[in-house]
């Protein structure tokens, strides 16, 4: 576990540097199992920073969310760095953004935090119900200790941690300037058993499942906006000329939206699972992403977000790529 006082100290030290503009980390949320990602600009605010298993959000998303306003004539753009705290999975987003040249490596200062898992709010609600008071938690290799208003309960990891954590392959940050705690030992592998199970169904069964799921979608685009890899300034789904997807919410447009979204993450999804977490109508979005992740791994031996020197999957090719289903 990371020592929070050390984390705050480090944050304050980084923020005090002249070439640093802001720092993205987490602070305690206003209720229940919530943590809030926060962007701080002054070393004095570093006191609010925390890191514990409630810190689910991926801070890498906020690097690219910041709007670039036109610089007034006679002024110069602020090119100071952004510092960002990352867990293992979050760091993969930074790697992939660097692979895609979203920004330069010099642009960010990465403070890595080895992580043993974060809490799934839905699982927590099933265990604890609707919690109003602020919750903190501790996690180790066996258990999660949840502190609800002074009342500490110990819970089994699989009952409360996010699914991504139970099969986490990269608990330690893959890119960082400084590591804020000792590396942790990897505890799991990923066999993509869930993907295989879903694939076993007939096309009719699969569609029946997705038809129900997609028809719930209200197209709030939260899954898109929260995604650290969805950082296009202009998105294909909001374009009007040509209009690829209509704004109408019906099964036809919703399906096409979800196919587009998943497709644009082919070979890019770093499995932070934020899309599924934020969905207000509980669509299992990762089921689509994980299918592609597995296929990309098997067919092209490619894994996004692990190697800064890698080529983007769809901007490269191998003459020996599989093609047995091509006529």
């Amino acid at each position, binding site marked *: 576990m990371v020592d929070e006082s050390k984390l705050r100290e480090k944050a304050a030290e980084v923020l005090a540097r002249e070439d640093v503009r802001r720092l993205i980390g987490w602070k305690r*949320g*206003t*209720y*229940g199992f*919530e*943590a*809030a*990602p*926060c*962007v701080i600009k002054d070393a004095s605010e570093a006191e609010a920073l925390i890191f514990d298993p409630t810190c689910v*959000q991926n801070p890498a*998303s*906020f690097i690219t*969310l*910041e*709007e670039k*306003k036109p610089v007034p004539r006679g002024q110069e753009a602020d090119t100071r760095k952004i510092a960002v705290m990352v867990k293992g999975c979050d760091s993969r987003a930074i790697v992939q953004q660097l692979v895609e040249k979203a920004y330069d490596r010099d642009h960010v200062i990465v403070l890595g935090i080895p992580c043993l898992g974060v809490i799934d709010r839905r699982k927590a609600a099933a265990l604890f119900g*609707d*919690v*109003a008071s602020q919750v903190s938690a501790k996690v180790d290799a066996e258990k999660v200790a949840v502190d609800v208003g002074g009342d500490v309960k110990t819970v089994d990891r699989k009952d409360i941690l996010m699914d991504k954590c139970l099969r986490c392959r990269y608990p330690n940050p893959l890119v960082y300037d400084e590591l804020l705690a000792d590396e942790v030992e990897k505890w799991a592998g990923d066999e993509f058993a869930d993907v295989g199970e879903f694939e076993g169904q007939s096309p009719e069964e699969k569609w029946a499942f997705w038809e*129900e*799921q997609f028809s*719930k979608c*209200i*197209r*709030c*685009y*939260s899954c*898109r*906006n*929260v995604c650290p890899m969805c950082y296009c300034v202009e998105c294909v789904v*909001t374009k009007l000329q040509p209009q690829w997807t*209509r*704004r*109408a*919410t*019906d099964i036809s447009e919703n399906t096409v939206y979800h196919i587009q979204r998943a497709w644009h993450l082919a070979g890019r999804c770093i499995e932070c699972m*934020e899309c599924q*977490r*934020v969905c*207000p*109508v*509980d*669509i299992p979005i990762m089921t689509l992403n994980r299918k592609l992740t597995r296929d990309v791994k098997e067919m092209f031996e490619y894994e996004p977000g692990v190697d800064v020197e890698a080529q983007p999957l769809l901007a490269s090719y191998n003459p020996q790529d599989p093609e047995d289903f091509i006529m």
Partner: protein
Amino acid sequence: MGDYKFAKTKLAEVIGAMSDYQVVAPVESGEVVRFAVVDDPAKVTLEFSNTNVPPKELMFPETETLFRFRLGGTDLEPEVPDAAARRAVFGIRPCDAMAYTIVEKLYNWDFPDPYFNNRREATTLVGYACAEPCANCFCPSLGGGPGSEKGLDSIAFDLGDTMYLKTLTDKGEELVKALGGVLESAGEAEARAAAKQVEEAEGKIRRSIDTEGIAEHLPELYGHPFWEQFSDRCLSCGICTFLCPTCHCFDIQDESEGLDARRARMWDTCMFSEYSLHASGHNPRPTRKERTCNRVSHKYSFFPTNFDAIACVGCGRCINYCPVNIDLLDILEKSKQADAKEAQDA
């Protein structure tokens, strides 16, 4: 008006007896509870604190055809959709019903909106009082409450084994008549139990906001740096607004399939950057800071200025579902401390 009751086990029978109406009720589909037209009364569930998607979609659907037409030629022969079907909405929470009384002021402002009004007219609302408010409910602060009757035609209370139904308007009474003999009449005891339940539920509500002075203060804070502590983590998604029972903004688009075409309106949200984007490319609300400011100010200042009602019912959805914990009450409390002078300097 009348007092009625029925055994909770007979819920499906009661819903089934509403056959003169198109019945809309909370139904579980794909792991979430949402209001939908009931085809099988057995599917209706009362096991929910509140639906994720508010029942505003019953009066203001996500996507709604305004009229249809044929492409080609110069004669437009718009075909306006039929008037709304007579329907009964069963199980709507008091906060969501109160939201209709707020947005209907806007829908009848400079132009009475026939789509909204037709639906509202044709609908009988049977409320469902809250016994277990959720962590972020704050309806009493806005004039509502777990047993609020605002906007409702009748209200049901879950008293354990029995459901107590109190009618509030002629429309509500009419629905009861249409039910035939399924209901029994209720007495003092049920009314007392219901009142006690409401009182207890109110006691369980943990959050509140004193709205005094907010409407006057917020416009002075345009551009104030305090917004940034929230907007810096905003995702610019539509959760807070799409799930808000009083948010009512829409976009209008023409769509065609072959020669058939329609003009439709669909939910839009001020949190998208495209919302305020001008054709020229200029965007008067270029960053999330202005958009966050606009959302809160619209609810708590601009709307009350125009319509004498705060556009918020305290259902807590925007707080519950915000993926990055942007907490409306937190914003409002902090806005009170923010100094208008700093906004001018900024």
